[in-house]
């Protein structure tokens, strides 16, 4: 019971979801089609269960940081800041979700969302531009022939992608196009096929219960 039921749940749910992508028409005797079964039951159920698991994970976050604060561990003040903002945003956002009619609360929330959370997010994103620059400088070394090929195609694409490349040599955009259209497309396609085969086998093993470590059930 402890082992079999979870494996059975995975198998049955996976089978329904998979068949919902493949079949049409009603299931004999049930008067409902697989795609409907997925849309009406599995999918909304998943939304609800996922929401519960987000709350579970948040419990972990809250416990870890509360512990930092209560034990006055080093840098506990930051844990306090984290928990403080979590409570403010959490309570406010929950209120709006449950009371969608209160437009004043919603518009105030969108202020703290748009002018605090959102710039923090885009500010962090923009750091990627910095890191691209430092990684280029520090790590993109022509250590061997393979690395040189990587570097050369990267530089050619960069030159072709901006107007200044076309000014330096009119053929740069042509080369860039070719690199994107032919070798890049080929590589992407091959990696896509390979990854799909790998993920297919991984899924099959999980669906059949051969792989079960993630459930905390030992031994295959």
């Amino acid at each position, binding site marked *: 019971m402890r082992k079999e039921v979870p494996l059975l749940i995975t198998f049955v749910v996976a089978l329904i979801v998979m068949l919902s992508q493949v079949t*049409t028409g009603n299931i004999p005797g049930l008067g409902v089609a697989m795609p409907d079964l997925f849309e009406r039951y599995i999918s909304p159920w998943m939304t609800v269960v*996922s929401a519960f698991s*987000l709350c579970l994970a948040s419990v*972990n976050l809250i*416990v870890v940081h509360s512990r930092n604060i209560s034990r006055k561990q080093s840098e506990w003040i930051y844990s306090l800041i984290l928990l403080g903002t979590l409570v403010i945003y959490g309570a406010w956002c929950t209120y709006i979700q449950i009371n969608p009619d209160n437009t004043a609360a919603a518009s105030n929330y969108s202020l703290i969302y748009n002018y605090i959370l959102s710039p923090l*997010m885009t500010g962090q994103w923009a750091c*990627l531009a910095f890191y691209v620059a430092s*990684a280029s400088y520090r790590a993109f070394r022509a250590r061997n022939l393979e690395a040189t090929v990587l570097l050369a195609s990267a530089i050619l694409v960069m030159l072709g992608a901006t107007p200044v490349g076309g000014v330096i040599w009119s053929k740069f955009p042509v080369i860039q196009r070719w690199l994107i259209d032919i070798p890049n497309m080929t590589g992407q396609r091959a990696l896509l096929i390979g990854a799909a085969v790998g993920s297919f*086998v991984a899924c099959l093993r999980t669906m059949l219960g051969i792989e079960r470590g993630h459930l*905390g059930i030992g031994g295959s």
Partner: protein
Amino acid sequence: MTIAPGNVFGFWMLIAISALVIYTIRASERGKFKVTIRPIAGLEAIEECVGRATEMGRPVHFSPGLGDIVTTSAPDTLAALQILSYVTDVAAKYDARFLVTIRMPNVYPLATETVRQGYIAANKADSYRDNMVRYVSSDQDAYAAGVIGLFHQEQVASSILAGLYMGEALLLAESAARLGIMQVAITASVMQVPFFVAACDYTVIGEELYAAGAYLTNDKGRLGGIAGQDYIKLIVIGIILIGTLMTSAGSNAIQSLLTM
């Protein structure tokens, strides 16, 4: 109930290759044939990663990626969890300080279970702490910010990034590189590979992610699965070659068959 048009070939191919894979798994388990995998350098480096952290008395960080288990990123995440299971073993063996960060809440219960069982299996149940696995944030940017914060705060010595990654890959990897953290990245996310190559000490790419579990554990069943994977690829290569020949000869029969 009938198979929807356009899926007939796909459905029967699914059945056929499933049977093939099940056969290779069983055959390998029974020792009917021996499967050896070519060396994958990046995976060998994981033990070095943990060992180094232990020597320095600082934590090892592991991330199972940004993917979820309820979407098409499920196989990437499950593969990452197999790697997590191996890393847990090594960490328990070395008594290393271990830190796992989680982005997707759905992955959290799976990861805690994997780590807890790993410590129990290694007879180190006492060393297991419930703050080893930490949920950070479901937002990918906030997740990256939180992990970078942990790198600084906990003085992480080495970091293993496995699974699906998005644009945040470079934020994590380059911040770690600036702190001198030893890194191994294992991902099938094509767009992120160049950045991992630039910032990490070892990068394991593409399909190797799904082979990692078998490679690290040397489990016969898993190795059989890898052999099955190779057969499928040989079949695909065959289909593409035949299709190209027939197309060149002016026939679209293969295309029609595949889209049946």
